[in-house]
């Protein structure tokens, strides 16, 4: 079953008086439960595609369908709703809120989605066990290692059971050992939970963890 279907996607930015064509007609299909890596040099359009698929930016033209919902037809409020429930993000810099503990970083994602107030279900508890952060939940990000922070970020991204997990250079700030650990977890989530994952990376070793690699250059998929 198709999770993501992108057809003729273009994105044009205006920088001063210059028009920048970040995406020049991208077509992409990702099946449910697939783990896809998008690779390409800087400026190839990977991040722009990531932002559009995550509902952070609107497309200029084309269609982008996630679970049958056309993102091109969504306004700001519609994209906000999409981010609440349908998409989970993992960023290179972890992006945890520094003032909150790991537990509260996860809880606030539930609160924003309107799911707070109930205890974490057994499946989620198991996920935390898998991530190995159970004993670190009451620590603030500054007390966690990079690898631990990224694992908390993964837990946060999945707490609302999104249909799509978007990872932007998830190992970019980690050493080799932690990178492998995080990628193994992501791979495991894909295999065990059937989580659809789209990962942006410039690291071929990281891309090798995915089922499929898509290469981008100059705003197009090669």
């Amino acid at each position, binding site marked *: 079953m198709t999770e993501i279907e992108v057809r003729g996607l273009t994105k044009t930015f205006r920088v001063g008086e210059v028009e920048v064509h970040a995406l020049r007609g991208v077509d992409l299909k990702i099946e449910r439960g697939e783990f896809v890596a998008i690779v390409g040099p800087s400026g190839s359009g990977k991040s722009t595609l990531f932002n559009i698929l995550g509902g952070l930016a609107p497309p200029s033209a084309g269609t982008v369908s996630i679970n049958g919902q056309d993102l091109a037809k969504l306004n700001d409020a519609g994209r*906000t709703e999409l981010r609440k429930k349908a998409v989970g993000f993992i960023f290179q810099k972890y*992006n945890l809120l*520094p*003032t909150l503990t790991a537990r509260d970083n996860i809880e606030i994602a539930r609160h924003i989605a309107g799911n707070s107030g109930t205890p974490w279900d057994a499946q989620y508890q198991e996920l935390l066990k898998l991530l190995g952060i159970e004993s670190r939940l009451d620590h603030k990000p500054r007390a966690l290692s990079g690898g631990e922070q990224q694992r908390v970020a993964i837990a946060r991204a999945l707490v609302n059971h999104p249909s799509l997990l978007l990872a932007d250079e998830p190992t970019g700030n980690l050493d080799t050992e932690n990178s492998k650990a995080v990628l193994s977890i992501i791979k495991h989530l894909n295999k065990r939970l059937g989580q659809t994952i789209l990962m942006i990376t410039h690291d071929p070793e990281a891309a090798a963890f995915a089922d499929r690699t898509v290469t981008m250059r100059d705003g197009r998929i090669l």
Partner: protein
Amino acid sequence: MIHRLVFENLKHRPVRTLLSVVLISAQVTMILTLVGLTRGVLGNMQKRAKGTGADVVIRPPESNIASMSSTFSEKHVGLVRQVPHVSVATGVLVHPVSNFDTITGIDWDEFSKMSGGLEVLEGKRFEKPDDLVVGRVFAKQRKLSAGMPFVFGHKWNVAGIVEEGKLSATFADLRALQDIFVEPNKITMVYAKVDEAKNINPVIASLKEQLPGYQIYSMEEFLSLFTADAYPLILPFTRVVVAVAAIIGLLVVFLSMYMAVLERTREIGILKAMGASPRYVLGILFRETIVLALAGTVLGIGLAYGTRALMAVVAPNMPQDIVPDWYPWVTLIAVGGSMVGAIYPGLKAARQDAIEALAYD
């Protein structure tokens, strides 16, 4: 959950939070001190007027409660004495020395008969023309003791110190004051005591007939004149202070929240990436603002007790009342002003582009 985020955010920047609270508290203290001083000083004036023991007060036509400059002939005292049921009548002269200070000339024996007498704590009553008797608080403030010379619009000798609460804080002999300040036979007011309470109104009616145009009050009416309304400058001044205080609070919160939004650009981006709506982000900042304003109000109320203690040392003749009925108003002013100050930073945060915010370092 959102409340935890709000409190953690405030805890995370303790200096900013503390500074904001202290600055908001300053506006609250400013308002409470001004209102408290107004009430305290007027209340003190009421207490002193009541302390005369008089039942009826007679003042010249066109005189104002806030100014004692109008005088009239002393012969009116004799006229008042002749009214049936008036048991004692005495004239007093209030001579202004500076903006806030006056000397009151009295006939010691007559005034004692009416008020029950001034309680001499140190020294003696005035006997010579240059003798001055001062109140206990006044003496403490000016560091005076009996027998000391004291320049107060004239070269005086402090003859004695008396307990305060009756008419004035500085007394001289009526004749001497009239002579020194070239106002022979002139007085500012007449105080009269009536034999029985039921005869007060008939006495007033009789006096009004004999002294048309004069301001003749029962003590109850006279005391009711000691309100902020009787002093034309107080209300506008209070309004200006309240407005300035509200603007200070607004600017403090504006700067504080603006800094907070700039500092937290990335965090706002994270919240937005998780699906936080502009309203959600605005709600966080408004909650933080309310907490700051309420903490500032509580501190400001506490500091008003501090200013009262300070005034008691620095200016004991200007007592400051504690005014709990103004607490809701200062809360409203602090919270309202702060919320207005938080609107622009709040909207800036709410409209923040998530992608740009996430890229912010």
